[in-house]
């Protein structure tokens, strides 16, 4: 039976809302990026000056390369841990079921609270982390004020909060593998490694891809931990690009034209990464 009613009418409110509240501000950002505009004094037309200023700023390049480094390292570490833990807790035991529920907890805590919590835990003078390191007779680094420890701190916090997300997705993927397929491979005498490589992995790859894509997108926009945990310190050593936009375009400086140019670059950058990942994935799937 053909459905009554007009689907365009059903989608119209959502499309209008998204256009007005997301795509319109982005278009406006493109427009104001052509102005030298030190808010609230009036804007002055500047052509592409903001973009040339951006591309000749050392801080731009360091924030951007920090972001690439941050996303790549954190993603690889989290994925490895998540796969190991998912394989570890996939069997149904009482302990494993409890662990699966517990995994939900860190990612539900507001990121601001997680940042503040770890700012306390990592405090070099009175924080518990260095207290335990002291008790063990280990060196007690200045976690938040020194490189590379500040990066370790940021990565540890993100692992703590967001690896559970990947673990839960990998578990869902593992459960989607039909058990008789694995058993058939067992009967054929496949080793544990080749069972995983040739039976399980190809089947869980699509789900791993979705989880990975969402994780990369969220890592790219990471903000709270840099803002509240390291505050970009030491120097501008832990500036991520999101922090660069916030500080160069809004907080303190209010150079909104310059900030808008930086935003547009980030939008294109994120888009390019998303498209690359999707294309890589399809190439990988075609080969598998």
């Amino acid at each position, binding site marked *: 039976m053909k459905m009554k009613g007009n689907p365009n009418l059903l989608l119209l409110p959502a499309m209008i809302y998204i256009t007005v509240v997301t795509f319109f501000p982005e278009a406006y950002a493109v427009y104001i990026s052509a102005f030298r505009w030190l808010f609230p004094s009036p804007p002055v037309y500047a052509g592409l000056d903001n973009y040339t200023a951006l591309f000749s700023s050392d801080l731009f390049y360091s924030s951007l390369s920090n972001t690439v480094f941050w996303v790549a390292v954190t993603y690889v570490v989290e994925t490895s841990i998540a796969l190991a833990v998912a394989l570890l807790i996939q069997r149904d035991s009482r302990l494993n079921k409890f662990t699966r529920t517990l995994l939900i907890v860190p990612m*539900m805590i507001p990121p601001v609270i997680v940042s503040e919590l770890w700012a306390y835990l990592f405090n070099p003078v009175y924080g518990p982390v260095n207290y335990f390191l002291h008790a063990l007779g280990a060196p007690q680094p200045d976690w938040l004020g020194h490189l590379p420890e500040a990066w370790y701190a940021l990565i540890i916090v993100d692992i703590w909060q967001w690896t559970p997300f990947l673990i839960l997705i990998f578990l869902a993927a593992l459960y989607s593998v039909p058990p008789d397929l694995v058993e058939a491979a067992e009967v054929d005498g496949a080793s544990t490694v080749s069972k995983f490589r040739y039976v399980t992995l190809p089947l869980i790859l699509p*789900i791993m891809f979705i989880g990975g894509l969402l994780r990369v997108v969220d890592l790219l926009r990471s903000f709270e931990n840099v803002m509240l945990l390291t505050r970009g310190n030491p120097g501008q050593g832990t500036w991520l690009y999101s922090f660069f936009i916030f500080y160069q375009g809004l907080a303190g400086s209010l150079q909104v034209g310059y900030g808008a140019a930086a935003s547009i670059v980030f939008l294109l950058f994120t888009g390019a990464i998303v498209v690359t990942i999707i294309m890589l994935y399809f190439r990988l799937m075609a080969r598998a």
Partner: protein
Amino acid sequence: MKQNRLSVAMQSLLVLLVCLSIIAPIFFMFLTSIKSNVAIFTSQIFNFAPTLEGWKTIVFASGTAKSVGGDWPLYFWNSLIVSLASTAIALLIGLPAAYGLARYDFKRKNFTAFMILSVRLIPPIAFLIPAYLIILFLNIQHTYISVIMFYIVFQIPFVVWIMRGFIEQVPKAVEEAAALDGASQLYMFVRILLPLAVDGLIITSVLCILQSWNEFLLGFTFLSGDSVTLPVAAAHLADYALISWNMEFVVGMISALPPIVLAILVQKHLVRGLTLGMVKG
């Protein structure tokens, strides 16, 4: 056999280690919330005299607490209003779209679905500056509406993508039978279809609420004074030169509890929700 039992014990030990690493930081958050600031700054990790001073300041003394960080029951209320209002509006806008994508074939259907999804992929920081200028221009800074209007746009992809999947699972025959009985389309959707997709509706609402409840960047930029939400107020509280950690973590416990409870209640569908319905968890 003996080898097997040993490896099971090893596995359990590793799982316990995973649990410990999740629980320990939260345990310290609780422990610190019942310490005096003196005990905290002198690094009395375990041997301290418990006190409820932080809890009392945040929960009860809203009037006098103004001097030490603000009116916390009000901020809780702000968070609640902003989360519930944005979720309600996002459902109102998103549900028809989800239904349209689930039940109709039309030109550019995949393109439309992807356009809605793309909002989930845009980093909020990339439209923070133009959005801020628009809010100043409309003169609605420091109001609920300033954040609600943007939270809705983050929530719409969740509503559309998750609900589309759940609606597709309901057999079309249900609607066809209702149509033969002469039910109107709206009646059919609200009274027949939604109750059959109620799991989806619950997980969608919970994820929408969580998203607004935990949001920081826009709230921090647009709100101030009496309009701030809990995460924003928590960040301001931590900005004092001599931070009151016990108060900070009382706020932490209070603002973390509702999302955790909600998420555990909808545990069964959580993975499916978090991946916008793209993974059937």
